[in-house]
């Protein structure tokens, strides 16, 4: 890796604005950035930090209403801001490749993927239709697509998310660009897929000598993959340096905060796991919830009878009082189906759920309502789980009103206590959800779940829609509340890094089957299953820390 005197990409004082009804909003303010040939630089920031806008500004593809206010962008000695649209088009793809964020929305659904790769070659290269098609297959092969000649003839909807992302990488690399800009290339993918894609991208850039500008929200990914890290906040660069520097000795308070809250970089668990000696999994006296041989099958589409997809396949586990049991799995592992069965939102095809010794599998009517007081739910997305027309106070009092508990004053007092417990100021009582941040909304959702003093709270990916720093706060809150109230959690997550902080015991799910379950520490340090091992290795940041 040779550092030339002249960087490949040099950005100076770049500011980008968006026109909005309320005037211009500056999304990127005075950013300086340089990428040398063959170098990998990561831009890290939370949502709203301007990192995606920066990426789009570099290739001259700002969304409607966006414009460059000041600053220069030099690529390979040429000033990009002075180029015409035509010249920019020639440069995109051939000079700078772009891997977009969302693999499911970035491919043309009505064209075969091979055609979409070949299109780049035909636009930029002096190459005829037949050679382009053959070359496209080669490129797909290079990008790590298995059976490339078969895949080239398929449509995007026939491919998995990981495969689609590989196709996008093939498209970005097709015309052999000298710089690749990857905007959150893996954030929509499962961790194991993410790891394989990033490994592959790294290998490809290394082979072709291309530079990589990696835009990501995950400090772990950035630290693993990049030589240098640039931290953005509020549209400005707050810190830049080598990965090790930023990770181990962050200077700016924001990056220090970011490093401290990145779940993948913290190995310090928030809860202490019981040792194997303290509890044997055979005992059943203190079990709050027992799931026994749960099976859930979705009917085959279009057919009246017959078994369709088996989403949950003979899963058994138990949760003690005051304990957090986590179910970890990638998409399609059946973890959400299990959460919904336990929360009585879904009927299992077979199997039983025992709650406090009673079979609740078929609870209906009054029995179910009584159960609702004791089992509560925290949903994944706080942006959709609160009624936009209600105030915070109405949302949190709703369970009390539903069960006719207390009079107006009692309820108001109870809501204030809870808001206090979830660390929200009482001034928010009259606000509506749209006036709150994502973290505040999730706190409101947690308060609503706890207002009836339930014994068990099912948390379905409660932090996956939130920024890392907010994630850390919510996780700490959940642990504090557990200490205070003795509530049990069934914690559903795709992220082993989150689970290792919060769960006493963990179960690993794959394709509906529970592969192993046990104390979180034991699972993490000595996984019995190969897949668990793969999941642990896929936690980003492990490479940067182990150096």
């Amino acid at each position, binding site marked *: 890796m040779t550092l030339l005197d002249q960087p490949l990409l040099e950005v100076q004082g770049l500011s980008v604005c968006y026109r909005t*009804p309320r005037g211009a909003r500056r999304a990127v303010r005075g950013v300086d950035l340089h990428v040398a040939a063959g170098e990998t630089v990561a831009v890290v920031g939370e949502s709203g930090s301007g990192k995606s806008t920066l990426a789009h500004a570099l290739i001259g593809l700002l969304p409607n209403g966006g414009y460059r206010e000041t600053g220069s962008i030099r690529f390979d000695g040429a000033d990009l801001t002075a180029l015409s649209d035509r010249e920019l088009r020639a440069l995109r793809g051939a000079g700078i490749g772009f891997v977009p964020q969302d693999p499911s929305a970035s491919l043309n659904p009505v064209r075969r993927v091979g055609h979409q790769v070949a299109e780049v070659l035909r636009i930029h290269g002096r190459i005829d239709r037949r050679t382009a098609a053959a070359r496209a297959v080669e490129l797909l092969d290079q990008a790590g697509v298995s059976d490339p000649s078969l895949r080239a003839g398929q449509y995007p909807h026939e491919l998995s998310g990981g495969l689609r992302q590989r196709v996008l990488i093939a498209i970005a690399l097709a015309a052999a660009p000298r710089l690749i800009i990857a905007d959150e290339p893996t954030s929509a993918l499962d961790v194991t897929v993410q790891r394989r894609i990033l490994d592959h991208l790294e290998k490809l850039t290394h082979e072709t000598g291309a530079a990589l500008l990696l835009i990501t929200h995950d400090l772990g990914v950035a630290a693993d993959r990049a030589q240098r890290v640039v931290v953005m906040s509020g549209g400005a660069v707050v810190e830049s340096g080598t990965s090790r520097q930023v990770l181990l000795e962050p200077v700016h308070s924001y990056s220090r905060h970011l490093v401290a809250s990145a779940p993948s970089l913290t190995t310090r668990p928030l809860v202490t796991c019981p040792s194997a000696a303290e509890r044997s999994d055979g005992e059943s006296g203190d079990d709050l919830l027992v799931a026994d041989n749960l099976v859930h099958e979705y009917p085959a589409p279009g057919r009246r009878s017959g078994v369709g997809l088996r989403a949950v396949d003979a899963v058994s586990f138990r949760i003690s009082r005051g304990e957090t049991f986590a179910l970890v799995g990638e998409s399609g592992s059946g973890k959400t189906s299990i959460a919904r069965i336990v929360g009585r939102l879904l009927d299992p095809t077979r199997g039983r759920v025992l709650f406090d010794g009673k079979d609740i599998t078929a609870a209906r009517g009054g029995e179910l309502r009584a159960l609702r007081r004791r089992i*509560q739910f925290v949903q994944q997305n706080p942006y959709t789980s609160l009624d936009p027309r209600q105030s915070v106070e109405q949302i949190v009092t709703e369970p009390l009103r*539903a069960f006719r508990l207390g009079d107006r004053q009692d309820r108001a007092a109870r809501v204030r206590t809870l808001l206090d417990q979830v660390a929200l100021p009482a001034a928010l009582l009259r606000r509506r959800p749209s006036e709150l941040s994502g973290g505040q909304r999730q706190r409101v959702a947690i308060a609503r779940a706890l207002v009836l003093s339930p014994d068990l709270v099912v948390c379905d990916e409660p932090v996956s829609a939130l920024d890392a720093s907010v994630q850390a706060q919510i996780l700490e809150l959940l642990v504090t509340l557990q200490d205070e109230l003795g509530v049990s959690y069934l914690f559903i997550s795709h992220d082993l890094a989150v689970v290792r902080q919060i769960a006493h015991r963990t179960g690993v799910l794959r394709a509906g089957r529970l592969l192993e379950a046990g104390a979180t520490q034991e699972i993490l340090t000595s996984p019995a299953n190969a897949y668990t091992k793969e999941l642990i290795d896929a936690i980003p940041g492990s490479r940067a820390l182990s150096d």
Partner: protein
Amino acid sequence: MSAVDTADIASAARTRKRYAPGLVLSAAVLVLILTAAIAPGLFTRQDPLAADPIHRLEPPSRAHLFGTDELGRDLYCRVLHGAALSLSTAGIALAIGLLCGTLLGLIAGTARGRVDDLLMRATDVLLAIPSLLVSLAVVTALGFGATKTAVAVGVTGIASFARITRAEVLRVSVAPYVEAAHVVGVRRPTVLMRHVLPNAWAPVLGFAAVSFGASLLAVSTLGFLGYGTPPPTPEWGSLVASGRSYFAEAWWLSTLPGLTIVATVLAANRIARALHGEDGRLPR
């Protein structure tokens, strides 16, 4: 919103203060007509029913702004006094469509299954027949009069309102916050009234605003065809109709009430569009 420059906000606020001139004009027209409907005495002292055979069929002048009709009655005064009847009939028609439609849509959207099928096929049938034909059939069955005209026009609106409400109810009932309400133990009817309906209603109300113009037009059409309030009570549709026979010698008799209807419908539609959000999105 830390990235906003205050100077920019101020300038943007200045540009936003200037409303579209068409909207201002529409609001002015509607305010005038509503005032006339509530208190026609503010604009004219004359009696809409007082005949004056000496001044029959006089063209618009300073004394008679809209001219006079075949009995010498002041047309301006008759149009003003007709506003109350025409607007309230249109309003009642709209209310009937809105209430019945919302109720049916709510039932269809929550009951699903056979009830849903039955109700939706019924609305299909209603939508398949031209609305004027439906109104005519209903008003012929019911008999003449303002209230009956309102019912006849209202019935034609039920299908569209039911359709929109059902679609919105289906959209809202799968929202996570509705599921959350079920999970915290709220009973089904309460969930429906407290969470589903308020969140489903915004587009329905938007459509209601747009429908007012069409409703007024339909009411006037029935009045024109002679199904409305019997003469001599002034009503916009019947005013246009009665002027028809004198059209060759007195153009103003049909034209000026007709233009009043057109102006009101256009103003109502313009304001409805503003309420609906200029770009087609609903204001939150």
